[in-house]
């Protein structure tokens, strides 16, 4: 990704979806980690939607979810998927393309 693109992306509103299955410790950790990362890097420019698949299991099939928790970056495109509780902040930043891999 060029620097120009990268900065353009940072200008957009980010749509993030976190798939969980009930209030498990892993899911809660993932949500807390995600919120912290967004507040630090995308303040005011993000939306997080938490989808509890326990309440709506059909979406697991429709959205191809296997692992829990799964974070999906819907916007900006392209779609990115990160699985796990996001405990590695550096990796999460690179995974979401909030920081270029060095």
């Amino acid at each position, binding site marked *: 990704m060029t620097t120009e693109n990268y900065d353009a992306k940072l200008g957009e509103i980010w749509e993030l979806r976190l798939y969980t299955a009930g209030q498990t410790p892993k899911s809660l950790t993932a949500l807390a980690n995600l919120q912290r990362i967004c507040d630090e890097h995308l303040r005011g420019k993000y939306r997080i939607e938490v989808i509890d698949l326990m309440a709506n299991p059909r979406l*697991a099939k429709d959205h*191809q979810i296997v*692992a829990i928790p799964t974070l999906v970056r819907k916007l900006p495109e392209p779609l990115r998927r990160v699985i796990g509780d996001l405990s590695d902040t550096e990796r999460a930043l690179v995974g979401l393309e909030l920081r270029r891999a060095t």
Partner: protein
Amino acid sequence: MPKVPTGIDGLDQVTRGGLPKGRPTLVCGAAGCGKTLMAMEFLVRGATQFGEPGVFITFEESPEELAANVRSLGFDLDRLVAEEKIAVDFVRVEPSEIIENGSYDLEGLFLRLGFAIDSVGAKRIVLDTIESLFGGFTNQALLRSELRRLFRWLKDRGVTAVITGERGDGALTRQGLEEYVSDCVILLDHRVNEQVSTRRLRIVKYRGTSHGTNEYPFLIDEKGMSVLPLTALGLEHAASDERVSTGIPKLDAMLGGKGYYRGSSILVSGTAGTGKTSLAAQFTAAACARGERVLYLAFEESPGQLYRNMRSIGVDLESHAKKGTLRMHASRPTLLGLEAHLVLIHKMITEFDPTVVILDPISNLMSAGTSLDASAMLLRLIDVLKSRNITAFFNHLNSGGDAVETTDVGVSSLIDTWILMRHLEVNGQRNRGLYILKSRGMNHSNQTHEFLLTDRGIELRDAVGERKSTTR
């Protein structure tokens, strides 16, 4: 152990009733061995024949590909899905699209399975093939503990599961799935020998139950899978006292006055052009005229050619074929492996339910396998036929140099009535002669009779040389 029938032809006999109810069964084998088709047939038969809806979880093929692949077996997957008898979920794990970060589990997969099971009220489930998960996630220890949890969960749900796995080096499956599935393991195999392929099935283990331990040949055709059960019939079949006419009064007379025993095996051997097929045709026509059903397996001639040739000696096979009492099946022996032939013959016997089966000639089957294979196959076939009280009629072509009393297929000891056809040279004429080498359980003629192929059928003359009143 309670079992559920698979509905797969022959498999329920081999497993003595089907797969363990409410437990997982592992079906493994190399690529292309028929795992997916077997698993799908288990589901389709369950949904259509046993009122047990099912779930197919596919990890490799899309639902569209899957439906297209099983359409060749006559299964309309789309319709079964529309009728909510089967649910399909394609679990696509694409490692390049997934970034792992921190700890996770496969609860999403569990939710999907649970949702699919609940959506159709499934009693059966297929996971094809769950090993794909190992390519999608890097945390192998986590995967293994999740798999263990998955199999426990499936048991708790009480669904009968079929798990497929690809054969690994020196192990049944690449990821050692056999470690998790301990109740029943079935191995499928697909071997090609001298360009001829044979599929085989073996039950590697089946806890708490007796089962067949042999390798059982199976076929996959337009009606699904059929396994040849090859149960150990041994020598327990009942012997019939009933006699059936050979279709030639004089030959009946030579065989104790009444012809062959019903359910016996008859071998007619001789060199080319001695009249073996004519003898078979005459017997066929006589059986059909009595209203019996005859399965005629021709390995040398097409039905049309046989009809024409037999018409020339006054035997009309075609009309019996049209009436449906005769089923003619012509195929080249080399088209299939010996065992595949056997499965096919078994299948035709089950479908058509004949009282007479003709194999013309068995010597040609030799070209589809080794001599040992051929006699083993015939032994199995004779067992199948005897257990059903079917009269078996085998022609055997001796090649010129062979001693007349040998059959290279080495089946003579299995044969009840053995008729030898030969050329006789009498007074500078080459004529056809017929001799009964043996016929168990009857007082048969011991003389060589000359016979003629006339336009009214086979005509036996008096015994050669000694035309006296002692001839029978």
